[in-house]
């Protein structure tokens, strides 16, 4: 995992993405591309160093590319919590603890994460460097609460056992289990089966 002091240059994949991002804005307004560029930098770090974060050197590179004062980029990168300004583990566990998830047992998920990874507090990274756990606000998937977001994927309908199994799988180095509901629910369909539109609609009947 690289530290704050290492230099940062954009790689080829990033350069292609940067060109596309800047092209979306009128000439002279390229500073508008600051958020996509920070995201591109974070992705590059994920590819290159296995840790999706934006080191300061990357923020400076973004500032230089867009002709902005570095502090303006720091402001943005620190304002949005999805930019990680500190290194994170290979698996970034983002546990939702907002009310719906909490009502559905997010405390259990947090406890399971702590137990499986040895992490004591939000914001910490496990000793093996694999996991970082952060507390996040509503992920917008409350119907299938509680939610644990790992890197870019949502794992839904969790409980203690399934969370532990999920983390054990990740730890073992096996391919990540498929994201989505961990109880086989289709999208956000009701748990107890379909509750509405159970008979063919009036319109369909008339047509027959």
């Amino acid at each position, binding site marked *: 995992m690289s530290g704050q002091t290492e230099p940062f240059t954009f790689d080829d994949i990033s350069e292609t993405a940067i060109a596309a991002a800047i092209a979306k804005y009128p000439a002279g307004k390229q500073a508008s591309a600051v958020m996509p560029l920070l995201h591109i930098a974070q992705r590059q770090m994920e590819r290159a160093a296995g840790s999706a974060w934006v080191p300061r050197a990357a923020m400076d590179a973004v500032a230089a590319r867009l002709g902005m*004062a570095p*502090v*303006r980029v*720091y*402001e943005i990168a*620190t304002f949005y919590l999805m930019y990680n300004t500190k290194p994170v583990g290979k698996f970034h566990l983002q546990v939702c603890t907002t009310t719906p998830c909490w009502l559905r047992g997010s405390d259990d998920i947090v406890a399971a994460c702590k137990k499986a990874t040895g992490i004591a507090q939000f914001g910490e990274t496990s000793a093996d460097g694999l996991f970082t756990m952060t507390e996040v606000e509503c992920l917008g998937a409350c119907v299938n609460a509680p939610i644990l977001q790992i890197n870019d994927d949502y794992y839904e309908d969790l409980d203690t056992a399934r969370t532990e199994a999920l983390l054990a799988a990740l730890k073992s180095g096996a391919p990540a289990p498929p994201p989505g509901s961990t109880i086989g629910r289709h999208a956000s369909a009701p748990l107890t089966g379909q509750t509405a539109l159970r008979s063919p609609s009036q319109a369909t009947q008339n047509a027959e």
Partner: protein
Amino acid sequence: MAKVIVDGIEVEIANGSSVLQACEAAGKEIPRFCYHERLSVAGNCRMCLVEVEKMPKPVASCGQPVADGMVVFTDTENVRRARRGVMEFLLINHPLDCPICDQGGECDLQDEAVSYGRDTSRYDEAKRAVSQPDWGPLVKTTMTRCIHCTRCIRFSTEIAGVPELGATARGESMQVGTYVEKALSSELSGNLIDLCPVGALTAKPYAFTARPWELRKTDSVDVLDAGGANIRIDARGAEVLRILPRMNDAVNEEWLGDKSRFSVDGLKRRRLDQPWLRDGARLRPATWDECFAAIAARIKAVAPSRIGAIAGDLMDVESMFALRDLFTSLGSGNLDCRADGARFDASQRQFYVFNTSIAGIEDADAILIIGSNPRHEAPVLNARIRKRYLASPTFIGHIGLPHDLTYPAMHLGTDPSVLAALTDGSHPFAATLRAAKTPMLILGAGALARPDGAALHAAAWALAAQFNMLRADWHGFNILHHAAARVGGLDLGFLPAAGGQDTRAMLDGGVDVLWLLGADNADIAAIPPETFVIYQGHHGDAGAARADVILPGAAYTEKDGIYVNTEGRVQQGFIAVKPPGSAREDWRIIRAASASLGQPLVYDTLAALRTRLAAAHPHFAAPAAFRRLAATDLQGPAPGQVALSNAPFTAVAANYYQTDPISRASPTMAACVAAHSPADNTNFGLAAE
């Protein structure tokens, strides 16, 4: 215009004004923390709430534009309750550590808390704690006190043009700072201290020194650059403790450069507090009479053409006037106030002042800067150029060492050959100048001190004439001096009389007795060993080290004095404290010396001196009556004997912070130099490439 009724008082105010401005026009005071007249509106403190008829909720008056027929209430129960609520929230995370806070007694938060604060706090939870970053030797941070008004961020971004401050993170975690800890690199950083409405940013060198009510306040004029910023000297007892800017929209608005503000500790160090006389290889303490006797003996022993005087950069007009009178009565015309050795035609006032005037910069639409780095030579004036650049499109070209001037300036070249390319139109910037309606050029005084200074002077004037800068309604030819005494000295004619020697000639052995009136920045090393040197001044600097007689004078805080800034504005400073030890005001020393030389000057009081000064030079009679000169006489300055060379322009001083005996004696300025290594992006000590 919009008609607005504020608490029953009807006021007319320009459309687009804010409700807060309307309230002020009606004489109502609105509490505010984030709003500042010279900064953009942020509207984030919510202290300025007022009620407006037909609006359901209280509105933040600083950000609310007026509308015709608006009815505003500034002092209803609702308004007071709303402000009390805002105050309570502001104080939630504030440490309430007024007893150990330097802002105490001049704190907006403290003042408003008297009106809107509760007597006890209802907040029992833990307060937020934040770290205290190090912003360098000048600004001390106590960020727990910060109320997130963002004034400091807006100042550094908008006025100073050095965007290093920002608000990082958000919500409860939001912090105002540089994110990457570093010393502030603006030359105007001290103004953050004045702007911060609370005690989050205070003066580091002044920490825990005094309370505002202990200080004696004296109005004066800054002399550490030629801008003539208006200042207030705060002293306690015999000691000057701090210097703050005073408001003057025509000169410094309300800003002050860091050197001018923080060199005060240099006033207490390396002071000459008694006369000294050379005895063989060493200087020994002496009495005034011994010194005057020694001077008289030497002066009487040589021909008048073999005595001379050079006036330095910090001198007041009165002492230069007295010394000139003395030398005239002694029959010597060897006088020069251009201690830097510049030789140029000063026969007309418009040749050597900043004719456009500082406020006039705001009317220029193209600016050509030649051989100067205004950011270091006059930071407050530089802020005015930036202000102009922000207000409307202004084309700025710069000839000289490349610098970050805090605004985009097209770098045209580093040497005078660009002038020729502009004259013959081959340089693209010539088209810009031609298209401009109110173009101006700024010629640095450092450029005038070059061997080919007079030729440059003439070439710049010719350029001004060619590009329509010299008109009855607009004068675009400007000299930017860096010595506060220079324009005053030139106004007095403290210059070689017909057949007299100039600075260079006097330093190179042209005289046997040389009187250095605070001339530490002259090329002292060139003075031959046999020359008898009289040094009159306040600091043990270069001049005193070489002197045969030292006459201890007064620093600018220790005398009443008139100074003329680079635009030719006559301003008066007042005495704040007495000179140390047996040091005396400079004109008095010269008066006493004149008596022992048998040529007593005709004035014994400062008032009599000033009367004579005003009679000889009428513009000193009415200092307030500053007028811009119109360019009516187009005959330019004489080009001198040395042809224009293509040697690149150099920096006037090695750094911004130490340029004169006072700042060189200041530990704070030394700390600033140490904090800003040449590798830093401020271009300090940038070498020519």
